[in-house]
């Protein structure tokens, strides 16, 4: 090479300028292309945020924690955001209540009906996104794995100190445990992923195959429960009892205690506190605890007591404000998380901002939007009759058919919580603001069936939204929708994850299994009854007389009270499984009935208006009759006690499918 270059030089001396210039150019090109290449292919430094830059200061690290919140806290509303990675635990287009005996979803898009028709399976289960839960767990693991990197410094929003670090670890662990709880009550034992999975590429037979580590095979139910309890137990000591006003909504000690309590209550329940799951597959430890052990009720009772004691000490109590009245107290307790009167919500979800009038809960939930969302949430009459009572705490009877005026009279006397959860024919809208445009505050117009008893559903109405078919099930579910802002239709959605009433009922339930004569049972139940507007369970009360001293009657009573108090809050669906009563007639199986109105004479029912006199209104009502009829025959199979894993994941060969699916 050197010789070549030397020769070049010699030759170049004898060359013409032009030629030597050319050669120089060529050489320069060649050399520069070979030696200047380092910079040529450089990718300019970008502003990529890596895991290290997230965890190198407290502000950013806290953003990682908010991400764990946003992807982990359970939300049962119809937000339509499930696909975006936010928590959204309802079915795609309806509340989970439509998938149990609490409710029914009517309309072409009503996918919770799959649960009622028995057509849900490993390919179409869309109530629960395993992928989204796994994302929440991954985010929690990312936080827990990297939080040690955060330096103890002060940045604009946070001063990082050992105490804060431990607290955030506690928050992340409770959030992770919450995800595991949600998985467990659906699937049983699940894969336990407590580190961030990595991609590993292995060369097999000359082909690169991807695996992840850890792979995530299912663990026993006991391991899963232990994992949840461990996270809770580790979090309880480091979490604060309360937060300043700016941070309300974060995981506090109560949330950890609550999660522990519900986990232990589930573990004590008949579904898993046994040596035999509903369907046996040879892998029973995935679905039950291997024996029946009454001390599990003891543990559950103690955990509930710990939570109730904590609540008392920290000012948590059921909302029972005379100024609001019984109905609105109950309403506010459920959803008005930030109302200063409400000290009942221990943990709620706030992964969504304020939603405007078009919020999905309104679109799909509110009857006037029926034609918009094509789905309505209804309350089957048989559920109402078997759970709710009248004002006096007595069971309600409604003849199979009769006239509208009579029906109205019966329903008017229903207990306050019924009025809080349902619109019924002739009831009033709680807020008139939203509905005024539709011409009055009488609900009958959208809850009746025009024509005769055999006619097609035809809805008449003043507003265009009302043209179409009416609510065929007669009672329209209104819990949560109630809190939609009267004036502009906006709503701040706070999904109740842990509400104090639940723990009075759980405490009573667990104590009854340990010792039915423990007076604490009735004390706890009366807390709930008092706020609910029912007479207290005390001597002289019919219910008191009926259950006193009878464990089974107490149990049934507690279950009934739970169905009423926790209506629509994603409890009933799991409670009937936990109690192993889902297969009973009228629970998840059998005939479901509705009530509907029809015109009984040639005289047409007219739209009620505010200008109607009571006499005119009464005359108008007389044109209608009602009838109770079966609308659905629901299917239950015992495999449904546990969810199927998605078939596409089972096909990958690492997840053991639950039996029967």
């Amino acid at each position, binding site marked *: 090479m050197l010789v070549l270059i030397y020769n070049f030089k010699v030759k170049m001396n004898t060359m013409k300028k032009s030629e030597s210039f050319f050669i120089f150019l060529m050489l320069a090109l060649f050399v520069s292309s070979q030696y200047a290449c380092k910079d040529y292919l450089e990718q300019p430094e970008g502003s990529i945020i890596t895991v290290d830059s997230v965890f190198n200061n407290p502000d950013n690290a806290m*953003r990682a924690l908010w991400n764990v919140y946003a992807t982990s806290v359970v939300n049962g509303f119809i937000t339509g955001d499930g696909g975006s990675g936010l928590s959204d635990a309802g079915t795609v287009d309806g509340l989970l209540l439509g998938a149990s005996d609490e409710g029914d979803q009517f309309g072409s898009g009503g996918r919770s009906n799959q649960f009622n028709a028995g057509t849900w399976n490993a390919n179409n289960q869309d109530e629960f996104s395993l992928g989204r839960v796994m994302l929440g767990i991954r985010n929690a693991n990312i936080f827990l794995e990297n939080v040690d990197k955060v330096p103890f410094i002060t940045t604009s929003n946070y001063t990082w100190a050992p105490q804060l670090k431990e607290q955030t670890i506690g928050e992340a662990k409770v959030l992770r445990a919450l995800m595991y709880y949600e998985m467990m009550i659906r699937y049983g034992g699940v894969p336990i992923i407590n580190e961030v999975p990595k991609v590993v590429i292995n060369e097999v037979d000359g082909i690169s*195959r991807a695996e992840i580590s850890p792979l995530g095979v299912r663990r026993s139910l006991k391991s899963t429960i232990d994992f949840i309890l461990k996270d809770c137990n580790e979090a309880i000591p480091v979490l604060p009892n309360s937060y300043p006003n700016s941070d309300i909504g974060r995981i506090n000690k109560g949330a950890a205690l609550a999660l522990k309590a519900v986990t232990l209550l589930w573990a004590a329940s008949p579904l898993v506190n046994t040596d035999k799951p509903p369907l046996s597959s040879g892998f029973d430890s995935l679905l039950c605890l291997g024996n029946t052990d009454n001390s599990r009720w003891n543990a559950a009772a103690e955990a509930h007591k710990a939570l109730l004691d904590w609540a008392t000490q920290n000012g948590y109590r059921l909302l029972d404000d005379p100024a609001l009245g019984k109905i609105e107290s109950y309403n506010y307790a459920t959803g008005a998380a930030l109302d200063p009167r409400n000290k009942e919500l221990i943990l709620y979800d706030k992964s969504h901002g304020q939603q405007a009038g078009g919020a999905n809960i309104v679109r799909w939930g509110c009857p006037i939007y029926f034609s918009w969302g094509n789905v309505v949430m209804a309350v089957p009459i048989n559920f109402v009759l078997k759970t709710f009572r009248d004002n006096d705490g007595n069971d309600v009877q409604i003849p199979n058919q009769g006239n509208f005026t009579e029906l109205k009279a019966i329903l008017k006397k229903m207990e306050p919580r019924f009025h809080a959860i349902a619109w019924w024919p002739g009831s009033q809208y709680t807020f008139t603001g939203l509905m005024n445009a539709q011409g009055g505050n009488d609900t009958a117009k959208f809850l009746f069936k025009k024509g005769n008893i055999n006619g097609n559903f035809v809805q008449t109405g003043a507003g265009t939204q009302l043209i179409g078919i009416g609510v065929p099930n007669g009672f329209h579910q209104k819990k949560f929708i109630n809190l939609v802002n009267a004036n502009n239709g906006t709503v701040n959605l706070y999904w109740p994850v842990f509400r104090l009433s639940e723990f009075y009922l759980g405490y009573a339930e667990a104590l009854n299994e340990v010792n039915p004569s423990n007076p604490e049972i009735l004390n706890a139940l009366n807390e709930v009854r008092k706020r609910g507007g029912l007479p207290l369970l005390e001597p002289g009360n019919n219910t008191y007389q009926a259950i006193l001293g009878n464990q089974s009657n107490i149990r049934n009573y507690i279950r009934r009270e739970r169905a009423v108090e926790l209506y629509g809050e994603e409890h009933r669906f799991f409670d009937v499984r936990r109690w192993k009563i889902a297969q009973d007639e009228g629970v998840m199986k059998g005939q479901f009935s509705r009530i509907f109105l029809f015109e009984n004479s040639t005289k047409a029912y007219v739209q009620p208006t505010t200008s109607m006199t009571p006499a005119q209104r009464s005359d108008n009502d007389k044109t209608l009759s009602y009838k109770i009829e079966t609308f659905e025959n629901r299917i239950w199979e015992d495999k449904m006690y546990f969810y199927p894993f998605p078939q596409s994941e089972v096909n990958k060969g690492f997840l053991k499918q639950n039996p029967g699916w």
Partner: protein
Amino acid sequence: MPKLLFQEEGAVKYDFMSVTLNFKLDFFMKNKGESPKILINVMKKTFVQFIFSIIFVSISAANDSHAQGILNQKISLSLEEVTIKEVLQEIEEKMDVKFSYNSRKINVNERISINSKENELSEVLTNLFKKKNINFELVGTRQVIFTSGNEDYATQTLVKSNLVLTKNIVITGKVTNEQNEPLIGASVLLQGTTKGTTTDIEGSYSLEITEEEIKGVLLFSYVGYENKTSLIGLNTIINIVLKEGASLEEVVVVGYGTQKKVSLTGAVSSIKPNDLLKAPVSSVANALGGRTAGIISVQRTGEPGRDIGDIFIRGIATFAGGTSAGPLVLVDGVERSLAGIDPYTIESLNVLKDASATAVFGVRGANGVIIITTKTGEQGKPQFTFSSNLGVQNPIRLPKLLDAVGYAQLRNEAEANDLNNINARKFSDWDIERFKIGDDPYFHPNIDWFDYMLKERSPQQQYNLNVSGGMQNARYFVSLGFLDQDGAYKVGDLFKEFSANPNYKRYNIRTNFDFNLSKNLSLFIKASSEIQDANYANSATRDIFSTILSANPIMSPVIFDNKMIRNVEGLTAFQISNTPLYQMLFNGYNTNFGSRLNINIGGRYKLDNLVKGLSIRGMVAYDSYYLQTNRRTKQIPMYDLRRNPTAKSFQDSINPITVVNQFEGPVIFNGESFVKNRKEYAEAAIEYNKNFNDHGITALILGTAERYYDGGNQLPFNYLGVVSRATYQFKTKYFFDVNVGYNGSENFAKGKQFGLFPSFSTGYIVSSEPFFPKTKSISYLKFRGSYGIVGNDKIGGNRFLFTPSSFVSGANYFLGLANTPLPGYREGTIGNPNVTWEQAKKLNIGTDFRIINDLISVSVDYFKEERNNILWNLNVPITFGAGNLISPYNIGVAENKGFEVEMGYRATAGKAVTYSINGNYTFARNKIVYMDETPQPFPGLAATGSRIGQLKGLLANGLFNTAEEIADPSRPKSVWEGAGLKPGDIRYVDVNEDGKIDDNDRVNIGNPNIPEIIYGLTTGIQWKGFELTIFLQGAENVSAYLTGEAVWPFIAGTKTAFENATERWTEERYLKGETISMPRLTASPEATKHNYRTSSFWMQDASYLRLKNVELAYTIGKSPLNKLGVKSFRIYINGQNLYTWTKMPFFDPEIANSNGAVYPMTRIFNAGFNLQF
């Protein structure tokens, strides 16, 4: 010494890169006095000057001021024992003068000593050559030419002496081939001069030379024939027989260089540029299919300017998606678009197919390479070629629509089927009667929407004028092209302000120059510019056609009384809100103005002085592209049509009245968009090429660098590489090649940017062995083999996947009494630090042979490729938590194999007729070997093991014909049957035998949408001046899965229906045994319903055979035109896509899987002529 005439006119002087070049155009000095020629000469002169002034704007043509006296200028020199040459070089260095001489005639290597002190240059020069009878003269101002006073005239003197010597000699003769057929247009050149001519229609030529030139040598050449030389001497008639076949010297363009054709060991095939010209299509890309083995092509649409087809070399071997399977296209050595090239400028088009040919392209070569080189000037007088083409395009293979009566009747039948009520109907007999009679044309119309919207004929025209020529040291090729193609919309011009009809105009200019600056140094400049000026409807084409397919024959005409109608009140039924005409016009129009500039500048320097056979070369290129799309809309006036309310009778009511629906608005600007990109490219190489004794060696080392800026905020795309090639041959019998590409791009992580791509190949010409029997049956036999590794970095368009896992702003969580939104940080992407290119391991085994006395030549190649590292999304378990965030990994593996055959036959029949047949056949089949697919419950569902693009669907087994078949309890139930099936529904096979028909019964159905087999057959017959060429092209193993409007009648109850709807199932038709190709009719076919699931029932065999091109040409022999300087005049008519044989009832078989909403393919009839002068 002869006096110099026209000196200043003849010598055009350029200054470029400090190189002085004296460029002389001899033709100005010739044949003075003959007026027609003078006219042409003037024309030529003006033209050439015009072109030059365009190109060399920066080049000065001014005269130097110190004109006269260079010979009188004084110079001091003192040199001992140097050659005369060195003396001259020294003087050139010191003075602004250039010397020219013929070194063969003038011995400049003689050593002398010289000592001059302030002597005049003329004196120095005189002394230099004293006693040697060497003269010199000043040409122009700075050039001195030496001429020998001996009888041997130097080259440079010939031209001048031509002017003064009067005694000329005319040489005549005839050039024929071995079959004694005249070769028309063969070149005859007096070697070492620009003097030459071409043969005429009879193969005859005549060339006038001077007395002195009889000592010269004539060179005869013709494309596809071996060159031949002949001494002139005292012969005045020289007849020459040229031998056909690849000359041993014939070279083929390969990657980064050329190789002798005989020594090729890889798989390279060529398409003759003339074949490309036969196809009257706008894009070269659409003329390639079937022309040579190895090209698989599909053209999906015929819309002007948007009809560029897809090309795959030897099929597809990757499933990475996007454009990742397309070949690398190089134009003059730089990656460039195939779209806008003027076919008249193409010198050669070669297809590099195997690893041996493509390894040098390294990371970009795996999908094959198409190399196009543009024409360069050839030494000789300016040769003008003018081509003119006028054609008409005609949309072909449009679906045949049902007429109104048929539509109404069948729609009634569908209604009855759906409601299960024989009396249910949408149209009364009275309505049907109106459709039939046509007496109520506005409210009972009968419209064929294709007929209504599309013209039968739309024009196109294409012109090209080029000139090439040059002297020994400067050659040029300049070409001007123009193409104008009109679209098929009949009613696109309803409003004066704009046209929605597509129009595509393209202007091409190319100027290629080659200069020999000295014996060793040559330079070239290739510059081309393409300007595109197109007009389209602003509505997407697919929307327009989708609306046509949404329309039905009973929708009213949309023009009444020259008014455009939106709604027709009182229409029987089914007016869609967007009529096809409205869809075409309401969005206005857009203009696309694009300009593309491509420039290559390069040179080569031979270093023979240093090492014999060594040379260096280099090139820089710059491309720039700009496209502006300007959208304008207009609120178009629209009316509603009503029955006349005052009408007293039906007769009166058929005359409608119009009511304004929408008022007219002005044309308004509606935004614009731009595409801007540019590319910088440089390469430099050292080459070695040497033959000694029986050995031949070539070697190449080349460096490349490319930077491409794609506009926007994209970082530039960079490539950097080294290429090397070494070939060795022994006795032109044994060949060994090694090709290595080493290159990389910024798209891969540091340390993993570069890859090495080696290939080895060998060839063996058995027929050259002494032991090989010299028979006529096998005259030539060669075996070739290659193996190598090539890369593909077009991995689905992803960039910088190696970037570390990144976090981005995530969703808010809301805390506190104020519901404060707290933004999160969530994982954005999870990086793949090891991302790399696809790797193709390619094997090629081939043979070339000629049999029956060279009459038939055959090439056969077998190829096999394994493509691994295909970038594919991981299918990780859900427990990963964020599987969708993982960057794709290089885990896919596919294979592709097949064979290709090329065959040629050429013969004569009688004296005057020659004919030839050329055929080629390509078969390529791929298979997905691995793609990280979830194991499927049934093997038929897996993509792994299937072909790329293989559709999965249910297997149809005819229709249910009787109620008994439906009622059969053993019949597998379909999960889509809803209320139950009926006779006339499709019967599917329960493939997995689980007793039900569901998605798990899907299997491979049909073939992929890109053919596995493509073949072409060209037949040519020549008789006297006539020439007929027929080109047939076909494809096999290809399917089209058309859905929606393309096959199903009455979608949504209102959409179109084709004539095939009459072949529906009805009990009556079944019992009569009539052809049934359609299930029972319904008014709402949907893909989610039983009959319309993806299934083999709807799969169509898209194989076809096309009469792709026919050309009839006549070359006019002696004619008065010759007197005007016309050398050759060829007129022709040709046609494209003349006829198609296919099983597809509607639509062109090259259509993509779709609902048929595409601009149709066109048939083109074209007439043109080609004039050389």
